[in-house]
């Protein structure tokens, strides 16, 4: 079966209305047509994605609140501000929340909503697997919260809750892998005729790289967690019990593995560049290669190393022992520098697109989503540079809060980028346009929040503030207060963003929304806003990477209109 020519097996409003017909399986249809079933088991990718999105924002908010609590604790470096018994759990919650509660679910949500639309498909491949994946992830997230709230976690004292802690992370990994299989299969098998892999839109390409990475990385984590679980339950010898969590599975929560999870946010930036500059992308292969190179981070994750460092402490920059040094340098460059190179290639393509045309001059059309995507991209870039610096043993920042600054840059940068994606595609999955008057100040506030929440930790790390919650040097206080302000601002940004989204969702679509409000290039903008149940009335025929520009050019040629494209 292929989902581009076959009706999606969705539970639609039509079936809800037609429950009296004398059809076989009538009882099943009545059951499926209930509103609860719509949300629980719907195979409509937009509905699955919206469910993912709602749950993901809950976990994002929870993660930011945990960040705030930890920052409050750090406002007094000598003593305990919060209850001493919860600090270890908060640290676990922060680390796991940044990856499994922020980057991953938001990226999955956006991919599930957007990828079929961009590919001209009527449905996601294996939609029920994606639904099951969502519920397993969400169940894991709830179990994780229960475990932490009841003295679980890597330093927890309750045996059962520590077991639940391991099991919950494994559940989240399994659920996300199931969704990733659906996304990757969609990109490879449901593209409309004419969309070759080279013509695949940049965001869908980033979704493919991201989901392939998740498929490769998460089973490795599940394998490690299986050993940790058994070791914790029984002998507690070989893996250090629950305290061995960061030794054996901590690599998934640190750099460079986290770069992999930020790829869809980079894909949003790549997708929006041709939109805001109103041009076709020359040398698409460079952009595609750039996004692919960031995926090299996946290879780091499967090595299960917590850090791909350069252990040349104490004057390593000389020609002694070149063979050994090359052995150190190779993984350092591959896992830290190549993802950064990929990011720089994407940025380079941005500069190429920004170059003024000889005929039309400099064209720039600011959309409500681009600032989010641009700032998100920038923050991820700064995080990656921090990751490269952190891995240099000679700088002596390992074991300090510098590393926390890196992951906050990557996670909040990814969050901003994905919020840009949500704002960009909201006309297609809900209708309406995210207001520019809200988006611009919110994006500016978001980048300020990210910088405040992370850059002071770069500084404090260079000033030797150790990782964890305590420090004795009172000069470090100011940096920790700034971090608190940053996390607080980010909470406000996310809350306002959610409020604006809810207002859009609650407003009734008037049916007069422009199908192409951004003058974009990919085929999802050829269908109505919001898109109908099966996305397209007819499967579109695509003849280039920018089919909407083709159509507009044809129309201009036909009418002799020389206006803007």
């Amino acid at each position, binding site marked *: 079966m292929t989902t581009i020519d076959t009706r999606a097996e969705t539970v639609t409003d039509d079936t809800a209305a037609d429950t009296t017909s004398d059809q076989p399986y009538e009882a099943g249809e009545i059951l499926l047509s209930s509103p609860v079933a719509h949300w629980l088991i719907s195979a409509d990718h937009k509905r699955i994605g919206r469910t993912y999105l709602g749950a993901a924002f809950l976990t994002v908010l929870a993660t930011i609140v945990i960040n705030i609590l930890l920052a409050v604790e750090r406002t007094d470096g000598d003593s305990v501000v919060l209850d001493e018994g919860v600090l270890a759990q908060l640290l676990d919650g922060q680390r796991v929340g940044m990856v499994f509660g922020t980057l991953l679910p938001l990226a999955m949500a956006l991919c599930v909503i957007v990828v079929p639309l961009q590919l001209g498909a009527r449905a996601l491949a294996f939609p029920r697997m994606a639904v099951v994946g969502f519920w397993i992830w969400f169940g894991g997230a709830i179990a994780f919260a229960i475990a932490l709230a009841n003295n679980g976690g890597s330093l927890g004292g309750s045996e059962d809750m520590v077991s639940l802690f391991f099991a919950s992370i494994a559940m989240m990994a399994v659920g996300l892998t199931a969704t990733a299989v659906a996304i990757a299969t969609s990109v490879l098998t449901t593209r409309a005729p004419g969309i070759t892999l080279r013509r695949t839109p940049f965001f869908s390409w980033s979704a493919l790289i991201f989901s392939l990475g998740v*498929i490769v990385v998460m089973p490795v984590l599940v*394998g490690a967690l299986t050993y940790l679980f058994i070791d914790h339950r029984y002998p507690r010898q070989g893996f250090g019990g629950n305290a061995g969590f960061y030794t054996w599975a901590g690599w998934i929560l640190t750099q460079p593995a986290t770069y992999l999870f930020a790829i869809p946010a980079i894909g949003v930036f790549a997708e929006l560049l041709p939109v805001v500059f109103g041009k076709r992308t020359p040398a698409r292969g460079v952009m595609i290669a750039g996004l692919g190179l960031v995926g090299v981070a996946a290879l780091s994750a499967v090595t299960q190393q917590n850090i791909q460092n350069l252990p040349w402490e104490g004057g390593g920059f000389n020609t002694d022992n070149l063979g050994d040094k090359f052995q150190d340098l190779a993984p350092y460059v591959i896992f830290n520098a190549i993802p950064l190179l990929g990011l720089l290639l994407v940025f380079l393509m941005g500069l190429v697109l920004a170059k003024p045309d000889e005929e039309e001059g400099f064209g720039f059309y600011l959309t409500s989503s681009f600032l989010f995507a641009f700032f998100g991209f920038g923050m991820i870039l700064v995080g990656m540079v921090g990751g490269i610096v952190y891995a240099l043993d000679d700088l002596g920042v390992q074991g300090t809060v510098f590393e926390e600054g890196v992951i906050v840059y990557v996670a909040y940068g990814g969050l901003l980028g994905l919020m840009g994606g949500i704002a960009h595609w909201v006309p297609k999955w809900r209708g309406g346009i995210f207001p520019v008057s809200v988006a611009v100040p919110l994006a500016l506030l978001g980048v300020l929040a990210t910088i405040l929440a992370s850059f002071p930790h770069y500084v404090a790390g260079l000033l030797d503030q150790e990782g964890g919650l305590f420090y004795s040097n009172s000069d470090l206080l100011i940096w920790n207060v700034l971090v608190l302000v940053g996390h607080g601002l980010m909470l406000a940004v996310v809350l306002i963003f959610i409020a604006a989204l809810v207002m859009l969702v609650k407003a009734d679509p008037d049916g007069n929304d422009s199908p192409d409000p951004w003058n974009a290039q990919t085929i999802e903008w050829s269908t109505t806003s919001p898109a109908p149940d099966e996305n397209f009335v007819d499967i579109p025929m695509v003849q280039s990477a920018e089919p909407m520009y083709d159509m507009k050019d044809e129309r201009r040629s036909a009418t002799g209109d020389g206006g803007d494209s």
Partner: protein
Amino acid sequence: MTLALPAAPAPAPRRQLLVGSIFGATTMIMLTGSMLGIWALQRTRSLDAFDTWVPDGVTIPEVPSNVMLVAFVGVGVMVQWAHWAAMHGDRAHTVLALSLTGLFGILIINAQAFIWFQMGMGVADGTYQAMFYAITGMFVVLLIIGVLFTMVAAFRFIGGREDDRELLAGHAIYWYTVAVCYAGIWFVVYVTK
């Protein structure tokens, strides 16, 4: 104004189930590879520190583990037979081959249970024991999923879904991958010890 792209002709099927099966196979290989990698690391550490890895008194039964490996050759033949028969519209042979695949799967599970019984270790006895049960237990889960997959494929065929040949291709990929995973486990856990 809505700009309409020209409608495309009905696209050729793109073997979604086959691609999904390949991704499923990838996850199984990564899972097994991860567990074997950690096994090898712990083994090396134990040998370096204590000059021993397999605890005293633990004997690894080699006969059933070798029988399991040979049985996977049989599984490979059966799944290929099932696929070949389905491609030729031979319903009887397809169902027979699937039934035999399921039977082989159950026999392999039985052999693994026999190994556990013969070794007589407790999971809490030590690191080796815990890791042994973790990796072999994970493998049995893969086997059980395989047997269920075979049953689903067989019942669909018996139920008349005879055109669903892609399912059998995915089914074959699944079992081949389980065989590859077992080959790794056999070499690292049962041969290298």
